[in-house]
């Protein structure tokens, strides 16, 4: 580790840095020009710069600092971090693109404001995956969250939006408090905030009978559990998903969730907390939470009439599947579960963007967001309906869609952990069956049910383009799932070596 800051370290921070600068640029540009297209084009094309930096880091991994850390271990640029940076840039691109029409129509903010808020939050998310130290984890978490609170309340004329924002802020603060408490306990038990140091010290601390560590684990899990909307910390999600403007909801459901998992895995695996589960029963906590999360998410989603609430519960259910993979990690401390989670997340992000694009498209054209408003969408907007149907079927895990492989892989990893998680896998399969009902219901409505009006909906170019990108993405992931797994292998395994050497 170098003790001073040099060019290489700046380069390692460049993706996040350029996203922040892009956010400022877009905000400033908004003051100069009133041409929305210019601002939007700047933001979208500008995202290629951080993408370029990320790719340069991927290609030139040998040129980085030897241990891939910078700024005194605060920044860790390993394969895992780079995967998430890439994923967040994809999310950012999708969200910016799809919200173009919606912002003009429904929100009384300029496009530059809206885009800059999203970009700043995006920078926070990227940092959450690439920090190696507790304080910076927390700061990037807040950098992520505060713009999200604003996004929830942006629909200023809508009381539901205001309510959503207030609820989000207050509950977010509570969960942050719990997270901080957990971090404080961890610091107390190990005497450091550096995750690599913590990984070294935890075993010793635990073997000396320090149960404070267990409490710290539970609290940190709670804090991130809020972000990923795991039961029983999920209750904010339906209200806020419903109340927030739809593009913001999309951003919560993919960005916030992926960031939550990124940080959770980083702290637990890289910080060695998962490794202490050997003699303890921490995995039971995760398994129970996973089971409850899957079941509640899928069962309650059945009863929803509002598509955004349904997607909220669906995203809770999907978090449950991801937690099954996390439980597998907690038992075996092996990269296989991590690989499953990363692959599942990649697929989930693309499919959810596609599904929400359909919702946004309908809201754009008609202002409606109930499930029954999707009746006959297959005739009114064939391409959007077909793309959204594809995404929903992938979310339900219908073979051979990418979603099926993702789910299969996670459940298979859990299955391989022996009898301890068998019940969880069976429950996951039952939940999968339940989830088909509400996903397929929407597809059925789009293609079988008679529409109220047989008019042709005019979809904006941004929605159509986003859908096209999402569909191509899903098909590519379906065909090249093997490539995805191979490509992620390094990133998933990279978290582990420090943890396994006590």
């Amino acid at each position: 580790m170098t003790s001073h800051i040099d060019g290489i370290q700046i380069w390692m921070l460049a993706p996040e840095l350029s996203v922040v600068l892009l956010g400022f640029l877009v905000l400033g540009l908004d003051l100069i020009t009133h041409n929305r297209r210019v601002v939007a084009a700047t933001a979208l094309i500008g995202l290629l710069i951080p993408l370029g930096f990320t790719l340069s880091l991927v290609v030139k991994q040998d040129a980085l600092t030897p241990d891939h850390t910078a700024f005194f271990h605060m920044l860790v640029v390993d394969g895992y971090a780079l995967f998430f940076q890439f994923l967040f840039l994809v999310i950012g691109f999708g969200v910016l693109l799809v919200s173009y029409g919606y912002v003009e129509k429904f929100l009384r903010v300029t496009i530059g404001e809206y885009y800059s808020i999203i970009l700043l939050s995006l920078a926070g998310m990227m940092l959450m995956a690439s920090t190696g130290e507790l304080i910076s984890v927390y700061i990037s978490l807040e950098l992520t969250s505060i713009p999200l609170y604003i996004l929830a309340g942006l629909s200023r004329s809508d009381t539901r939006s205001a309510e959503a924002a207030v609820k989000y802020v207050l509950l977010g603060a509570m969960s942050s408090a719990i997270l901080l408490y957990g971090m404080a306990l961890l610091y107390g038990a190990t005497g450091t905030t550096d995750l690599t140091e913590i990984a070294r010290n935890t075993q010793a601390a635990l073997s000396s009978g320090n149960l404070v560590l267990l409490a710290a684990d539970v609290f940190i899990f709670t804090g991130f559990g809020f972000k990923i909307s795991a039961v029983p910390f999920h209750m904010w999600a339906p209200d806020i998903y419903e109340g927030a403007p739809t593009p913001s909801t999309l951003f919560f459901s993919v960005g916030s969730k992926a960031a939550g998992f990124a940080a959770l895995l980083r702290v637990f695996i890289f910080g060695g907390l998962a490794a202490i589960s050997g003699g303890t029963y921490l995995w039971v906590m995760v398994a129970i939470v996973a089971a409850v999360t899957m079941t509640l998410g899928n069962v309650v989603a059945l009863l929803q009439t509002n598509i955004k609430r349904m997607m909220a519960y669906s995203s809770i259910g999907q978090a449950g599947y991801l937690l099954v993979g996390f439980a597998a990690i907690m038992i075996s401390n092996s990269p296989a579960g991590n690989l499953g989670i990363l692959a599942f997340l990649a697929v989930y992000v693309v499919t959810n963007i596609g599904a929400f694009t359909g919702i946004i498209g309908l809201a754009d054209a008609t202002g409606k967001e109930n499930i029954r408003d999707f009746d006959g969408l297959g005739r009114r907007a064939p391409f959007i309906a077909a793309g959204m149907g594809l995404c929903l079927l992938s979310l339900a895990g219908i073979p051979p869609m990418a979603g099926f492989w993702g789910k299969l892989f996670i459940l298979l990893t859990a299955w391989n952990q022996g009898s301890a998680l068998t019940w969880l896998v069976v429950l996951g399969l039952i939940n999968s069956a339940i989830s088909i009902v509400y996903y397929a219901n929407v597809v059925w409505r789009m293609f079988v049910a008679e529409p109220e009006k047989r008019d042709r909906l005019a979809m904006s170019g941004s929605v159509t383009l986003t859908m096209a990108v999402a569909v191509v993405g899903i098909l590519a992931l379906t065909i090249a799932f093997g490539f995805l797994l191979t490509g992620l292998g390094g990133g998933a395994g990279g978290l582990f070596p420090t943890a396994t050497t006590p």
Partner: protein
Amino acid sequence: MTPVDLVWLVPALPLAAMLIIFFGTRMVEIAVQPRPAAVPAPTDHGGHGGHGPADAATTPDTEAGHDATDQTAHTTHGAAAAGGGHGEHGGHTPFWPMLSSIIGVSALLLSFALSLLILWQFLDVNGDVFHTKNLIATGKDIHLYNWFTIGSLNYSIDFRVDTLTVVMLLVVTGVSTLVHLYSIGYMAGDPGYSRFYIELALFTVAMLILVLGANFLVLFIGWELVGLSSYLLVGFWFYHNPPPPGSEVPYPPPAQLKAFVTTRLGDFGFLIGILILFTATGTFNFIELNTKTQAMDKGLLTLAMILVFCGAVGKSAQFPLHVWLPDAMAGPTPVSALIHAATMVAAGVYLVARLFPIYEGVAGPQALAVVGYTGAFTALFAATIALTQNDIKGVLAYSTISQLGYMFAGLAVADTNTVGMYHLFTHAFFKALLFLGSGSVIHAIGAQDMRKMGGLARFMPWTAGTILVATLAISGIPPFSGFWSKDPIITTALEKGNYIIYGLTLFTAFLTAFYMFRLFILTFGGQGSFLGLWGGHDQYRGDAHPRESPRVMTFPLVVLALATILIGLAGFAGFNQGFAWFLNHGVNVDFPVAPALDANTFIGVGAGVLGILLAIAVYGYGLRLNVALASSAVTRPIYRLLYRRYFLDELYLWLIRVVVLGLSNLCALFDAYVIDGIVNGSARAVRGLGNITRRSETGILQNYGAAIFGGAMIILILVFVATGAIGR
């Protein structure tokens, strides 16, 4: 980097062409062209947009065409054929669609050139040019990527290039190139011109993937894509619906459905066969299967191979699943040429040839017996139907079914797959020639009914001359290519002592020559001309003004005719022996060399000559044998039986209406009362559970906060208790 390493380019080039046309020229074409409101759906977006009108109009009644047939059977004045109307575009193709076809043709040309290079590399046994020694013996595996791995099971996307693949690559790209070229003339001015090239390219890509696959997984992807693209192409004129009154040809939407569903029946067995093999051996890979099946239970393996053959029966239109192929001529004629010569129907023969080591060496003899008898029976069966048909493409369709039967018989009787494959090879050229030639005729006069033709030879000498070559070839007359490939099948059957197959194929050879010359004389000749073959204005029975087709259409005919003649002439220099050597990975095998001029060859050729003479006597010189047979009280039922295609379509329709629909009604009852009861019950339980949990979502902030803190506490206590009580 040698050509064989680039083999993925062979399907990739047409694929790229397809995408460029789809997203490029066709989009521009749609953009620049004013949308005519009245024309249904020519401006649809490739696939999905086009189904709207077709779906609405599709009825399960595929029989309408045959009912119409019945009505016109005894009236000499059959109404103008519906399909013929399509041929009479002759319009001008605008710039953008023209660009589409140029892209398509050039991509196929490149693919063909690459295939030729690969052939060269295979023939370069000593590695003088390409430094790849003895590729002919080893072949080359090209691992594209692992789709995924579960446990020890590998689902990998692999190509394999061996001599069999090279032969198929040449046939597919060669014929497809000519069909692409020919379509520039045939489809000129059609509103769906670019769409046609998209679907044509997809068809070719599908077939190339099929023949390149190194395992069942890839083969099946190609297999299904072939099915899909044939569905699209057979129904290319999906908006011509319903058919004109009195039409004798099937109209597109039911025909495309029939093609898809009928082959699907075969695929059902095919899939079960694949799964049996996979379950027993754990691999999809053909090479591994060769060795691993040896450990399988003999009976099960034989059953699996027969089931796999079911897939070939469907795709290659063998009895009893042949019914889709005659109807598939509802598509544009170039498509028929492609389906009948190189792509769709060849897939079944290729499949058996690919698995030949297992059929011949490992599985029980029953498997190959099923293949052989099905083939030989189909050959005769289809030939008898072809005797009576009046639609020019209909006769050709049944002749294809018959010739495919020969190929299966050839595969079954010989020790290697060379005899059957050689017939596939030669047949591809002369059958493509026959179809493209008939397309040229249809293009010229706008009818498909041979009763409205006659004497066309002097109007369109190029077409007539080239078709005569193909007709001689399919009749097995030396020195044309068909003789060198068909005679060995008959001779081998005799040598192996399989007298049933020998008798069937020999008699079929006689019938083939008869009905093919009947077709030729009815179309081009007529009474009063030289041998009745080369007719002129006096013999023309229609009312159009026939003229020779443009060069872009006659050029492919000439190329194919030259191929038919040259392959035939090369036979004297031992070309078929060389083919056998090549296909057997560079090892000489005993290929029945036909021109040994023994008695068997004379019998085979004699049967063909007899058929030709009879056809000339009846149709060229007015021997009223046919009329006598058709009207005599004794033979009339037989004639009707043949004319109505053994009433198989009616039988199938009855089976579907009574048996299948009856069964599905029973199932519907079971579903409504038993299954739905269970499902509704469990759904009610789940909803009840959901209703209870939903109440927790109060919308009150304090409750949510309590849940977060309370949840964290409960989990903490649980972890402590569990760790304390059990762990430490």
